[in-house]
């Protein structure tokens, strides 16, 4: 019985040690960032985003999406800038905003299978 208990303890510890090895793996991720919205007027603003890491994936589209609700998606308003195959900065311009309404905006990138979004920024045209 004592030997069995020792064996069980050892196996448990080995399992814990090996499971601990899988806790973290520094894998590449799609990293898209949205810089602060600039040059905000009562009807327009400038947007700037960047694809920091595209995971060597050919993206079929990238751009910005915005709306009056948090976490805007491709179902909201979008600015499509087309396909891109390497990291880099991209810009956009929004017109036709309504003064006094709060807008939320994110950058995005996508391929056939998946869509990635950036951090979110919000602004209210004066």
């Amino acid at each position, binding site marked *: 019985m004592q030997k069995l208990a*020792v064996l069980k*303890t050892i196996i448990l510890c080995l399992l814990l*040690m090996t499971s*601990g*090895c899988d806790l973290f793996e*520094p894998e590449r991720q799609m*990293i898209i960032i949205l810089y602060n919205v600039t040059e905000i007027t009562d009807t327009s603003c400038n947007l700037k985003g960047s694809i*920091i890491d595209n995971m060597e994936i050919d993206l079929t589209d990238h751009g910005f999406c915005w709306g009056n609700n948090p976490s805007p998606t491709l179902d909201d308003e979008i600015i499509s800038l087309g396909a891109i195959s390497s990291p880099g900065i991209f810009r956009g311009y929004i017109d036709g905003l309504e003064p006094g309404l709060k807008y939320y905006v994110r950058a995005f990138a996508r391929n056939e299978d998946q869509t990635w979004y950036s951090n979110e920024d919000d602004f209210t045209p004066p």
Partner: protein
Amino acid sequence: MQHSRYDYLNVIRVLVMIGFVFMGDQICRSQDIVISNAKLKVKKDFAIITYNFPVKHHGGLFDVSVTITDPDGNSIINRALSGDLGKYVLGGAGKVIFWDLNIDRLLISKDLSIKIQASPSSEEKTEQDMLDQDTVLTDIPAEPNLKSANTSTIPGNALLEREENMSIPGRSISRAGVILPSFLLPGVGLSIYQGEPHWLRGMLGYGCLAGAVVYYLKAVETYDSYLNAFTVNEAKKYLAQSKEHDDKSEYFGYAAAGIWAIDFIWNLAGSRELSKKRSSENLNKLSLVQGYDPVSDIPLIGISYRF
């Protein structure tokens, strides 16, 4: 300097030889004297020696003296012997001598030879002596010392002439007792029993484990920097650093796991070897010796114990 009991006994590797030497007129005349029920037990820090005088010497008075010498023959003063020794020890059964190892072992640094010698009391007991002894002794006369008359009958080369083994149970070594402590600190289990610095493996193991944790934390930190990078170059740099730290963390982790695994196998083998060794020691560490000591010119019948 203080030592733990096990460390002390293991590191110093005390080897104690205990010899009983009984001399008396009747003993000297007979070559077939056998000490009955001569035993030695080690309980905690006490060595307990029990012996019986031959039946025909029951009722006689003997002076029992103890001599402890190191391998060079230098006498060591002992302070922790008590029991049936000294003057006017009544010949009979059930004699006991206690040796408190806890007190005297600080003096032990080498193998020791301990000789307990008994000779018939040659002096008449004084009244004070009588009062100091068991009252039974007051009725027993001291036997005459016939040493000089008997030495000629003893062959001079009879030392270690006959030896027989007895087994005494030693401190048991359980495999779990070796392996479980080593699971916490590799090597410490064997260090306890062998006294060798196996625990260094533990230090190495924990060093590797600490290295694994440090690099793991660094990898996580730089990965966070990668995720929050504002430029492509920053992202590349942080990702590369994170991977590098993660790799180092894994190397240290595998090294630590390897140390634990090797230590486990080492302990399995070591504990088995220790058990065998201990069993062998148990069989051989106690022996009876009959013979003759040409130095002191007296016959010998003794018991030796090694631990």
